[in-house]
């Protein structure tokens, strides 16, 4: 396989001479001279037809639920009952005073704080190591990215088995060193770290590929010039490679923070939010409130509180980057 050909931005392949020639030949009798590009496009009213399928789907499955959920958050809508009543802001008042909302929100933030740094740093190190062009490119990319292709249920099975008390690989390895056993998923003080460990292993490959693509976009001439100027390998790393990655790293950090805040799958499948609710993320609380306690109105209100937080964060984070660029 070709090892070093990840182009970041593909370019339209305009290499079809026959089609181009046929297309440029003006038909006799058509008023080509007076037709400017703009009027040609304006005469074309097909836009509605082309945008319709997407617009309808987005309206039905994105816009409507957004509005409907907002409405629901002001009602006492239940999953089964048909009649619901307008209750004003009481769901929001309840949510802000609900210790479970704050606790699960806190778990979500802790998970995000613990996972973002390794997910960015480890992926950067991987990309830098692979970008050296050393033999085995295919193997390195395969090893680092493959876990990302596993579905959360498979990741949960594998890691439950690794974390198995007494007989799992981790406890057996620790026992050989006369350490442990550790309650990987059963100890309230450890479970979140175990989940972060699994998450880093599982999803770091995605950021790795983003960094790798960015690295391959750095012009070789920069390195050549630096080498001629006598810059060593470390100097080239710190003066060329890392500065060139600054913008892409900022985007990856932002994407990763938003991604980490939405954690659900691996926590739900590994600990179910336990032990003792110590790892339960906000999305699981929304799920439990809506689908276990059937309080759809209240679950919607919590969803919107959470959404507002993500939005505020994203906007705060976006403003300075806009200024820089």
């Amino acid at each position, binding site marked *: 396989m070709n090892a070093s050909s*990840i182009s970041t931005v*593909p370019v339209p392949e305009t290499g079809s001479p026959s089609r181009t020639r046929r297309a*440029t030949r003006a038909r006799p009798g058509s008023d080509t001279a007076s037709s400017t590009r703009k009027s040609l496009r304006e005469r*074309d009213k097909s836009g509605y037809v082309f945008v319709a399928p997407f617009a309808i789907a*987005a309206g039905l499955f994105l816009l409507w639920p957004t509005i409907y959920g907002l409405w629901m958050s002001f009602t006492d809508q239940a999953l089964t009952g048909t009649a619901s009543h307008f209750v004003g802001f009481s769901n929001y008042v309840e949510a802000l005073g609900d210790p479970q909302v704050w606790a699960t929100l806190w778990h979500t933030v802790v998970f995000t704080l613990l996972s973002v740094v390794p997910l960015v740093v480890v992926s950067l190190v991987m990309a830098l190591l692979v970008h050296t062009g050393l033999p085995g490119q295919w193997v390195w990319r395969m090893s680092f990215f493959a876990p990302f292709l596993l579905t*959360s249920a498979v990741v949960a099975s594998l890691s439950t088995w690794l974390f198995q008390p007494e*007989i799992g690989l981790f406890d057996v390895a620790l026992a050989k060193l006369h350490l442990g056993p550790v309650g990987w998923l059963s100890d309230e003080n450890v479970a979140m770290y175990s989940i972060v460990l699994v998450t880093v292993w599982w999803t770091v490959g995605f950021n790795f590929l983003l960094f790798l693509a960015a690295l391959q976009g750095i012009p070789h001439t920069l390195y050549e010039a630096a080498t001629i100027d006598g810059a060593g390998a470390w100097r080239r790393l710190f003066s060329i490679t890392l500065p060139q990655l600054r913008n892409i790293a900022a985007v990856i950090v932002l994407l990763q923070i938003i991604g980490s805040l939405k954690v659900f799958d691996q926590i739900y499948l590994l600990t179910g939010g336990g032990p003792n609710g110590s790892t339960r993320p906000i999305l699981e609380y929304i799920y439990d409130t809506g689908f276990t306690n059937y309080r759809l109105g209240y679950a919607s209100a919590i969803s919107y509180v959470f959404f507002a937080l993500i939005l505020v964060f994203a906007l705060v984070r976006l403003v300075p980057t806009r200024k820089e660029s």
Partner: protein
Amino acid sequence: MSVAEMVAGRRAEAQRTKAENRALTRLTIGPSPWVRAGVLALLVVMAAIWLLPVVWGAVTSFKHEAEAALPASWWPSMGWTLDAYRSVLDNSELLRWMGNSLVVAVLVTALTVLISSMAAFAFSQSVFKGRGLLQALTVASIMMPGQILIVPLFKEMQSLGLVDTFAGIVLPQIVAPVMVFILKRFFDAIPSELLDAARIDGAGPWRLFWTIVLPLSRSILVAVAIFVFIGAWNNFLWPFIVTTDPKFMTLPVGLSTVKNAYGVQYAQNMASAIIAALPLLVLFMIFQRRIVQSVATTGMGGQ
């Protein structure tokens, strides 16, 4: 092109890649053999750590159930066996779920690519009233985390009678504003002379779309399709909420329900995990370059 020519072409490309990689090595870490050995050692260690859980799961899946419940060991002392695979394939609905996942992922991919590219074409090449507003809405909705919509979306599916149907699993997944955005940026780069010339030639919008825009955009369409397919194949939360009948469960959802039913049958657990992981892993081994490319181009919104 003859086979010999193809082989020669492949070989030439491999040669070129090798030369490029050697140049890269020289430019990044320099000529020192010690540094190279050090970096290589680091790569080997990290790759081994990353592969270890999967290899470990695979080894367990070939053990006898009785031995799998003993403290971890790398080499099965009771010998290798396919028992776990046999009982998983006989008893569970694994293959049905895999089929469901395939149907769902293919439908999601086909529909997403179709409606996103159509919308992107309209945004890029037509002028119509409300285009600005629709486009702004599309970009804004990229920020919307779909996860917070599970409650109203479920209620909506309930009233549409789509709970426990493929339509209910598929439809909410086909709305991908970020893909519209990526495709539009690509379509914008198609030389407008080409399209205008075709318009003068009398080509209608459908001709433009099918015979010029889509063929020119093969690379990005494949990238988007691969990205959407991986996401749909692995999606857990929405299919998990909208299916309760095992008949309609996708692989991730079905697997999560049998976890407890197996109890302590680790070998069977690992066997089903390995079977579930195989399709995408095999696809990745075959199409690695394409997949790497598609994640790189679409993963960051085409930046």
